[in-house]
């Protein structure tokens, strides 16, 4: 069993096999991942499933001098299979195409930042019984409320170990923990029988930071706010984004658009916009990997390169240095990697991902933002995503309410919005002081003027 396996020994064995079978390779990297998890699921507001599991695996990425890549992986951690997959990777590399854009895998040049509280050792003594206490908090909120009729939700505790060894001298290893809890609350209006749902989740590095009660309360609040759904008329009006709305409409699209791979292949609507103003002065965005204890924080990235803080947008200007790189895209542009190589597991080649993407809070009070709207929309969520190549974003408001004379009114049915993201950035007129952290995102409330709202209420009525 893998507790007995010496990862570093196995990785070095793999490199030796590579050297023996193809001495003239340019560089190679071994990635080993191990994880264990525990999961409790709630269905119909009752504990339904308990699950424990573990995962482990090893991959090799190897490059020829002409830049062609070979990759192979397995979850069978024994030398026979590892030898086989190294040989497979070499076979893959031999048949690949040359790539002059590939420069090198990271070299050991820079020191690593100190980032604390990424691993919570209380996971070691976490029992399934303790985990169940967290979901009991969810269940209680649903039981105690008259309108709540059902809830699904879950709690997961994860611990991951990543180990990276490359032929350029990098050897790093780190452990992290992730805990998450979620609630999808179903409510029924006691008078007219209308049913709706509301969702909320938390993701934390530290078990003690998980608050099931608060998560379920927020889901319940969202669900109730989603009752009395009505169709509205088509009209241009201001939209206030809740922190979740800000993530969906601003941070998520920016995360894709500043990905250097998307950018270099010209798949981003921000192509040609570097060092230019792309929106309101109020927009300041960082991608910070070195905040202690945050979900998107890391000491090193998926290639073992040191992580750091990067300024992306300053006072509405998209900075020249505002792209997120791994070693490949950085090499192509002849800059240094930003430490944003991301890999979801040992089985994937590194792509590019955000660390903690932060939209800096503004000066407005969130309540004032709403109070000052005569007629507008409070947008809490949409399941849509924009066309990143064009920036066009039309979607369905899955949770939103009408604002009238500064008050939050009925929920919306079949109501869509449409805007190009560059217009959206331009039309930001206010950002709140208050903000919320969801996973790797930090998001305040944002007011956007002049958004096309398409309602399903026909003009005849």
């Amino acid at each position: 069993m893998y507790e007995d396996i010496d990862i570093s020994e196995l990785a070095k064995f793999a490199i030796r096999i590579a050297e023996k079978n193809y001495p003239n390779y340019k560089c190679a990297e071994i990635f080993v991942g191990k994880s264990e998890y525990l999961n409790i699921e709630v269905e119909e507001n009752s504990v339904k499933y308990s699950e424990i599991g573990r995962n482990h695996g090893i991959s090799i990425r190897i490059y020829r001098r002409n830049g062609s890549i070979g990759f192979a992986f397995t979850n069978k951690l024994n030398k026979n299979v590892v030898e086989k997959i190294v040989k497979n990777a070499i076979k893959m590399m031999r048949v690949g195409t040359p790539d002059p854009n590939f420069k090198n895998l990271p070299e050991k040049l820079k020191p690593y930042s100190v980032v604390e509280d990424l691993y919570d050792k209380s996971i070691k003594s976490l029992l399934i019984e303790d985990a169940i206490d967290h979901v009991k908090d969810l269940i209680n909120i649903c039981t105690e409320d008259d309108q709540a009729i059902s809830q699904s939700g879950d709690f997961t505790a994860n611990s991951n170990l990543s180990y990276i060894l490359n032929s350029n001298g990098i050897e790093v290893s780190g452990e992290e923990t992730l805990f998450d809890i979620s609630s999808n609350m179903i409510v029924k209006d006691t008078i007219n029988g209308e049913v709706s749902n509301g969702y909320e989740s938390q993701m934390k590095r530290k078990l003690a930071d998980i608050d099931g009660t608060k998560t379920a309360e927020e889901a319940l609040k969202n669900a109730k706010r989603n009752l009395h759904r009505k169709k509205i008329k088509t009209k241009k009006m201001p939209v206030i984004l809740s922190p979740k709305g800000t993530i969906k409409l601003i941070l998520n699209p920016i995360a894709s658009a500043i990905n250097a791979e998307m950018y270099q292949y010209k798949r981003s609507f921000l192509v040609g916009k570097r060092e230019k103003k792309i929106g309101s002065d109020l927009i300041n965005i960082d991608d910070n990997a070195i905040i202690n204890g945050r979900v998107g924080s890391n000491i090193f990235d998926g290639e073992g390169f040191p992580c750091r803080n990067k300024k992306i947008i300053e006072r509405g200007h998209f900075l020249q240095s505002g792209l997120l790189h791994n070693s490949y895209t950085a090499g192509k542009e002849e800059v240094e990697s930003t430490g944003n190589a991301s890999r979801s597991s040992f089985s994937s080649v590194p792509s590019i991902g955000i660390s903690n993407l932060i939209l800096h809070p503004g000066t407005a009070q969130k309540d004032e933002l709403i109070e000052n709207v005569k007629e507008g929309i409070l947008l809490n969520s949409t399941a849509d995503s924009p066309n990143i190549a064009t920036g066009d974003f039309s979607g369905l408001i899955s949770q939103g309410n009408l604002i009238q004379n500064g008050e939050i009114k009925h929920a919306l049915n079949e109501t869509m919005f449409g805007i190009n993201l560059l217009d959206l950035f331009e039309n930001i007129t206010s950002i709140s002081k208050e903000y919320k952290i969801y996973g790797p995102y930090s998001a305040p409330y944002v007011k956007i003027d002049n958004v096309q709202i398409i309602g399903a209420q026909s003009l005849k009525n």
Partner: protein
Amino acid sequence: MEIDDELSLFDNAFIADLLREAGNKVEYWDIRATLSEGTTLDFTDQRSTEISSYEMANCGIRAFINGGWGFSVLKDLNKDSIKSSFLKSIKLARLTKSLLKNEFKIIERDPLEKSFKIDSKLPLSDVNIEEKIKLVKNHEKIAANSSKLITNTRTIYMDGISNCIFINSFGSKIKQTLSYLRLLNMVYSRKAGIIQRSLNSVGGLGGFEILSTEKAEKLSEKTAQESIKLLDAKSPIGGQFTIIADPKLAGTLIHEALGHACEADLVLSKESILKEKIGKEIALTDINVIDDPSTGQGKKLGLPYELFGSYFIDDEGIPSQKTTIIKNGILKNYLHNLETSSRMNLPPNGHGRASSSSARPQVRMGFTYIEPKDWNIEELIQDTKNGILCKDFLYGYTNPTTGNFQFKCKFSYKIENGEKKELMRDVALSGMILEVLKRISAVGDKNTFGFSSGICGKGGQNVQVSDGGPYIRVDDITVGGLN
């Protein structure tokens, strides 16, 4: 590619040992184990960005006691690990049971002892990596050279073979040898500052013959042409419109707007708007909707392979079968897994599916479609005064609780006075499940029938699905737009 049969460790003596361990402690258990191998080729701008191969093992063990489930996942396939995880699952089930408030039983079903194999004219094991690369390079070249407006191309080839075993406490022991292949092509083009993209894929269960159809051979050519065509498309104007949906879109519509809300797990958890609607008229009398993931559908559609959404048995050992969802407008059946069929006291209908042996089965669709009727496509357009002809989709989703769904179309043509007019892009459509089914005002004939395949996500798990239908017309759909 040859997989060593490590699964032979599940011999009769070992199974007898597990049965003994379980004794009277559990009411139901099952074990799924899979050994798989495969290849991924990822090319961008005619260069390889990933050429990879893998060899993996997965195993998941479930135990059930009176409404409570325990599940344990492991990767080391040896008797000791399996037995210890088996005991862990029982312990987890017991713990779950001690806390739950909804007690129920799993009704015992007939055991099945059988082996299944995906037939293939060109087995993946007979195709070498050079041949696969040649094919991908060729698609990349065709796309890149089709116009000066093309700025970026990407082609992803994925294949895999697997050996699976399923054992449960009813006495089932099912072995499967499966094989799949998928080719995906994406093309970006640019003109006067406008960037557009198109994406197409082919995929199915089988071997290299999946790439031998005309559709597969012309995949990149089609994607490139579409991408260029979209450069001149207009953004839509939002409002209420009559739409004509092509088979791909009609399939997505029925998958999103009806299928998910028919999944019995969502019905039991009060999350479906179709709760208590069995036997009720929820659509026009012209409408029949089926989910039929059984094998042989590909052949009926003239394909040399099985559909992506097809399977022999579901992930709970129940054979795939045809389920009528709507007959003449009346809701007839929900889709079930072992648990929901037990709780509703109905026979299971083979819709318990999981994304892998490491994930627990949920209620999922397979191949969902609307049955054809009698309109031909020309009549359908001529009969539509003002509307939008919508072809193909980018994605779709639904909220089964509120019934609100939405999807995005790839191509949309304005229809004016019964004539097809200018092209529009990024048309988003939205509606309410219970309203839209009653607004289908015309259903196309069998000559217009078609399907598409893709990946559907639910509860963090992705499974392969297919859906389809004839052309259909729907009145009063909300269309989103930037104008």
